[in-house]
């Protein structure tokens, strides 16, 4: 396993929105999906996931409903709302342009100035 990275401040919300945009998931499933997509390179504090979920739900970006898990247990599933979809799009664009700028700055060589 590669060295795990600590999550950048404020990015967990974005990752959750992305995770549930691919289909409804319960909390534990969201955790697994993020780890799976990141190939276990991101370290997410399990406890920090739920406050983030509640916050997002409170803001109306995700919605929840009780359903049945793979092993026939009652679990709370989250899915993206229309507002959440717009939010994810905006955040993604924002992140990409930010990443470009940062990468550009960091990649600058002395002779380019």
């Amino acid at each position, binding site marked *: 396993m590669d060295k795990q990275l600590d999550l950048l401040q404020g990015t967990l919300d974005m990752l959750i929105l992305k995770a549930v945009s691919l289909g409804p998931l*319960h*909390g*534990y499933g969201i*955790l697994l999906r993020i780890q799976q997509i990141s190939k276990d390179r991101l370290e997410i*504090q*399990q*406890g920090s996931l*739920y*406050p*983030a979920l*509640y*916050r997002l*739900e*409170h*803001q*109306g970006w995700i919605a929840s409903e*009780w359903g049945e*898990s793979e*092993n026939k*247990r*009652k*679990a*709370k599933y989250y899915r993206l709302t229309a*507002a959440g979809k717009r939010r994810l799009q905006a955040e993604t664009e924002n992140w990409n342009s930010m990443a470009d700028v940062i990468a550009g700055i960091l990649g600058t060589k002395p002779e380019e100035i």
Partner: protein
Amino acid sequence: MTLWSRLRSWAQATLRRSRMESEMDAELRFHIEAFAEDLVRGGVLRTEALRRARLEFGSVERVKQEGREARGVNLSGELLQDLHYGQRVLRKSPGFTAVAVLTLALGIGANTAIFSVVNAVLLSPLPYADADRLVLVKEVLPHAGPQPVSVSGPDIAQIQKLNHVFEKVAGFRVWTYEFSGRGEPQRVTSDRISSELFDVLGVQPIVGRVFTAEEELAGPRVVILSYGLWQRGYGGQPGVLGQTANLDREPYTIVGVMPQSLVFPLPGMAQGVAADLWVPLGFTKAELEDVGDNFDYSVVARRKPGVSLGQVNADLQLVARGVLETYEKSARDAHQSLGDFQLGMASEPLRDEVTGPPRPTLLVLLGSVGLVLLIACVNVANLLMMRAAGRQKEMAVRLAIGAGRFRLLRQFLVEGMLLAFLGGALGLAVGLGLKDALVAGMPRSIPRFHPIALDWTVLLFSFLIVSLVGLVFGALPAIWTSGTNPNASLKDGARGTSEGLDGQRTRAAFVVVEVALSMMLLIGAGLLVRSFQRVLNTNPGFRPEHVLTVSMDLPPAAYSRDEQVVSFYKQLTDRLRQTPGIVDVGGSTDLPLLGGWTHAFTPEGYRSSPGAGLNMCNHSVIYGDYLEVMAIPLLRGRYFTEHDGPGSTHVLIASESLAKKYWPGENPLGKRLKWGTAESADSWLTIVGVVGDVKQGPLDSVTALHTYEPYAQLGSAPSLRIAVRSQGEPGAAAAAVRAAAWGLDRQLALGDVRPMDEVIRRSTAGRRFSLAVVGAFAVLALTLAAIGIYAVLAYSVVRRTHEIGVRMALGAGRADVVRMVLGQGLRVTAIGILFGVAGALGLTRFLESLLYEVQPTDPPTFVVVLLLLVSVVVAASYLPARRASRLDPLVALRYE
């Protein structure tokens, strides 16, 4: 959308808190179990897996807490928690809670009760449409004095005609009638009124109509009934219109009925007895021509919108000039000169006239009840502070395990509010009871045109007080403990935190404030007691015991000739004299204490100093043995006899002070005076006797000069107040008077049947009332202060147990310890008394209007209050002092 979902989420979370909690539990449990199952699948033992899953997940409680915060339910949730905790804290110390809540309830209850009266009497608008625009117009006769007087009848029409500032102007005069033919004959209070009166007040009749302008002049006899008389006399039938009411044996046609809510005139107004019925002013031609005399009418007017009182008074000066011209014209017609006769006019809001007299009393009551609340608050603050000191360790623990300072502050606030609202709730109940007691004891001098109730204004007032009290109570201990350093406190806690100087000082300051406030209240109450004593000790000038008085007014319609009147009173007194148990009978046109008309007179040969104005005195026409019945002592000369009559020299009896004023050092017997000015056509009256002064107004009023004239000399006077002296209870004589009067005339209405000592009691009712209320407050204040001082000293003894032990071990005797504790109490009290005296000197002048022959700085009152206060403090300090002195030094040293 977002806002909506947020609101919904918050609402759901708040309203369905328990469901949210259990869902959160289920969700987190699912997570941990699912994680554990994955671990099991990875080859970890099941029991070990669950433990590892929990470990990796971290604190479930913290997640839940953050979850709640994320949903914004935290504030209300924590508030509930605080409430719950606060309630537990209060329940855990029931003694403290009971004392605090009870103290607050007394303070808040008393304030609620007094404010409900103040609100109904002083703050509520008068019960008329747009009542702020109503003013009373009065005339000013500079030669008779600066005080405005009532208006002369013919001037009402002039004011209506000449003014530019009023929408409507109406005159009225209180009158009484015999109302007969409907059950027992009764005297009813009536108002002779201008036809515009009800328009001025903005009131419509519920049945029929108001008077027309034509009816205002003497003509058709019409009457409007009050709702009360309509119900009482006519069973409330709507068919009452067109029926007749028998007033003074003459038929009046009923044209209207006014609503139940109408009270006019208002109690407290110059002629303030609520009328049973209204009749038109009914001026005769002669009355209208008699200008510049009989200043007997009240005038009420409605200002035009936007016209100020200043504009009104400016315009009234012009009106007065116009009225004076009518006087001059009339004087010219009669070939007389007005001399330097002047006339002015003035107006004041109707409201001031009504609420003016009771205002000082009510404000004093409000002020004293405010002091009581302050003392109650100081007491509770004191208790809270002692408790806060005891809870420093608890706060330190809570701070140490991570509670925010804000959270602690909020905890205190919630506890303070909880106390205040418990006190407030109980206080409302107390207030309701006190209010009823107040209303029951309220004298007539405090007008009641609104029901006195705990209405919304009063509830709001109480709520504001309670909130303020709660806020202060929450903030105070929070401020005291907010400096708590958890480390120091926890370490210190091992040996009952030695208290800083600050705490002791604050508590001492509390006692100082309490003592000072109680001192002020006690001095106020003391001054009222002294005044009351003075009033009760005032010699009214007559002996009220065993005297019954009854008003009789013979209606002119049935007694048109003088002989009829004379014969009625002669037969009446003869019959009464023969009744066993009745000692003597007499009559007078007016009775002591109830006021009377003043007359201008001229003593023969007396030269008044320039600018002294007219010579005025009270004058009574008396019948039979009136002076003997009232036991008004004869000082010189003689009482009237049967020989004094129209045929003989016209005689007069003067009061002692009148004789002394006009004939100082001379024998007043044989001196003469006459009514009016020196030029008047009246005949001279010779003084044949001098009697003692009598209080014609209330006991605490200035004694007026007085003259008496025999009834026989005047021919007749149909209205007399019959006075009967009996051997037994004066009430028993009432039946005899009724029997005698109705034996002569079954239709005659008897008015104001009352014993003279009841008249005296009534005249002191206002004083008795304010004394009782302020006195009760003072006693309450003293009790609260005593409790406060006791609590502070008792607490201080407990805190100083160790120190006392050391002192005793070092050889201090029990007496030394008692002296130490008592000394502590007395030192603080002494400072409080200093402040109290200073405060009382500053404040008692507001009492001045309620005092009688007592200075606001009356030294005996101050001394007595001081002694009382000191003895109460000594008593309150003695218990803790004794407890301190009984400490076993060995036990005390080990005390923690």
